[in-house]
């Protein structure tokens, strides 16, 4: 195995292959920076270029792009509270409040370092599980996948534990309900589409994310007329290395989140956005002192960022070994593989295992390269937070509108963007959490699909499968923990979250800008 790995590395370090890897990294960084443009869009852009390339060079370029997309998408999430991609939406919860305290550099430094380590762990996992991955992936059935989606949904209770688990649940159910708009998974009929062709396709995730998080934040930012960093611009760029050191201080959080990221990434439908929300919930739950989560806790940045890069290693496992894409990005990657004459699936494992090792190396190298470039650019890009909102926000409004339009290129994208934006603002002023909506919206289709397959294949017998029981116990444990963490008030106020003033353990950040900090309450 070591010999094969070294052979693969030799294939990769040819100047031409390295050049294509670098090009993929560059394009991946740009698509990550632009809100609404995903890795899949970037890969689609590169597809015409793979014709005539050596398979190793083509793979290096495509994997290079995928690897760093989740590194640079942190810039807009932390600096302006607009998610660079769906995978970085959870980073906003703590990253943006840190930027508002003038600690954007610290948040970014921690994010890049965690991303790099997560990416390296993902690459190593891809390398390490080659001999055993196939039986592992095939062994997880629809019932276990359904329970995993329920596990993700149980995070709703954690993310809204301080504000109100009941309100959080309602918002989460709302998200699930909106995810049912469009084509039904189990029958050829449309639900709640009102005879609209646009709604028949369902609401695009990227539009929902931009509307829910970006619109209310940007409006409040420009209304307050105070830059994101407020007066605290001195710490804007100086905290990069402090952030990196904090990652090393929380090394077990990074390792744990990365491993979970790999596992969740390997499960079709649970990678990307869903896995980062699950990891965020687990991160908040794994510490005694949870008071700063959602108000600028660096651990809330480190956990999800490590996971969303290690997720790449996981998502490549079913794609390469079974030919099953776990998301849009890996689906386009598989198309690229076929274009260069490589057949993904068991044949690839049997006949060209060296290419899988080339991919693992590309993933590792691209993560290191991407992180180095990000560290170099942080100083310049973090200055965005010091710009007066009156000058910055109009550009962002335009960028968001055009980004949203990329989802399906129909006017409906803009209408949904505004409607969801208004809904997000109403949730904020009513003090209801927004994050559960996204969790419900992301996990709803997978929950319905897996439950339907489980019921039609096993009836109720699937409830007795060992994996299902184990995951059920885990879910109950999470819910019990969420309840116990609210032991300080009366029963009603504990669950409804009303009638009791919110007590901040320390003065709020020096900014009148909107409070995503309260998302975790």
């Amino acid at each position, binding site marked *: 195995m070591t010999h094969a790995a070294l052979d693969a590395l030799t294939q990769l370090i040819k100047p031409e292959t390295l050049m294509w890897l670098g090009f993929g990294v560059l394009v991946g960084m740009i698509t990550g920076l632009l809100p609404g443009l995903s890795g899949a869009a970037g890969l689609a852009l590169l597809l015409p270029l793979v014709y005539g390339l050596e398979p190793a060079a083509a793979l290096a370029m495509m994997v290079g792009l995928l690897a760093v997309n989740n590194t640079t998408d942190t810039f807009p999430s932390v600096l302006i509270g607009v998610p660079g991609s769906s995978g970085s939406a959870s980073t906003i919860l703590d990253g943006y409040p840190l930027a508002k305290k003038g600690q954007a550099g610290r948040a970014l430094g921690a994010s890049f370092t965690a991303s790099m380590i997560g990416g390296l762990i993902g690459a190593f996992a891809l390398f390490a599980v080659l001999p055993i991955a196939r039986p592992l992936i095939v062994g997880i059935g629809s019932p276990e996948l359904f329970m995993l989606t329920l596990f993700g949904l149980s995070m709703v209770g954690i993310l809204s534990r301080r504000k109100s688990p009941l309100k959080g649940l309602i918002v989460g159910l709302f998200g699930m309900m909106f995810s049912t708009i469009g084509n039904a998974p189990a029958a050829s009929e449309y639900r709640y589409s009102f005879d609209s062709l646009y709604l028949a396709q369902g609401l695009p995730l990227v539009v929902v994310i931009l509307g829910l998080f970006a619109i209310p934040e940007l409006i409040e930012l420009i209304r307050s007329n105070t830059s994101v960093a407020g007066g605290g611009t001195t710490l804007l760029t100086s905290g990069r290395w402090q952030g990196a050191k904090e990652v090393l201080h929380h090394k077990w959080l990074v390792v744990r989140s990365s491993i979970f990221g790999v596992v969740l990434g390997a499960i079709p439908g649970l990678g990307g956005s869903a896995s980062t929300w699950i990891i965020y919930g687990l991160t908040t739950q794994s510490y005694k002192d949870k008071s700063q989560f959602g108000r600028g806790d660096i651990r809330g940045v480190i956990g999800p960022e490590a996971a969303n890069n290690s997720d790449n290693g996981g998502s490549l496992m079913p794609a390469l070994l079974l030919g099953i894409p776990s998301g849009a990005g890996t689906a386009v990657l598989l198309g690229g593989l076929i274009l260069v004459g490589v057949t993904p699936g068991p044949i690839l494992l049997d006949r060209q295992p060296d290419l899988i090792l080339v991919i693992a190396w590309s993933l590792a190298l691209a993560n290191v390269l991407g992180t180095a470039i990000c560290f170099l650019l942080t100083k310049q890009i973090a200055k965005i937070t010091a710009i007066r909102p009156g000058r910055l926000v109009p550009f962002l409004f335009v960028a968001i509108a055009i980004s949203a339009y990329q989802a399906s290129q129909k006017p409906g994208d803009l209408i949904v963007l505004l409607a969801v*934006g208004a809904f997000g603002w109403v949730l904020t002023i009513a003090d209801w959490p927004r994050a559960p909506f996204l969790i419900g919206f992301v996990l709803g289709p997978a929950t319905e699909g897996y439950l339907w397959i489980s019921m039609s294949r096993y009836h109720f017998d699937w409830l007795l499968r060992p994996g299902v029981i184990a995951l059920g116990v885990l879910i109950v444990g999470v819910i019990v923990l969420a309840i116990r963490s609210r032991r300080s008030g009366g029963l009603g106020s504990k669950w409804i979250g009303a009638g009791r003033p919110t007590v901040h353990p320390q003065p709020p950040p020096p900014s009148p800008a909107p409070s995503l900090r309260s998302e975790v309450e």
Partner: protein
Amino acid sequence: MKSLQAGEKNAAGITLAVLALSIFVYVTVAAQEFRDVSRWFPVGVSLVGIVLCLAVLLWELGIVTAGKSESLEGDATEGDTESSMTARRGFFTYMAWLVALAAALMLFGAPIAVFAWLLAFFRIRSKESWIRSLLYALAALLAVVALAALVHLFLPTGSVIPSGTWVPHVNIKF
């Protein structure tokens, strides 16, 4: 966003719960037209939602009728109320600007809409000088057109003046 005064927050919570309840009820009723396999999931979700909304409503109404709202506990100040009203007014103002941007994109396409909207916004809302407003709007227009040409962004074309179709696409050859 400055939190609303407690009484207002309760009222907003009640409004939201009523709205959510109505939508959950509608979803349940409308789902009766679907086949069984398409119906049970939205109905299941909505039924749980209805129960939870009722619980929240009862609780919030209980607080209001019992006079236990935070506002009566002396937590909020007059300044807070003013802030929340300003926040609301500000939100509707900027939403109106966003609606104008969306409408302009749909009617006139991205190049005209982006330039005209940014020029108007910088001049009227941001109170920038004419020269700065023009420069910013022009820079944004060039950035949008360049991105569309290079990375094949899809721009809204426009139904009245289809300016979005004027943007060329550049095919990069290696």
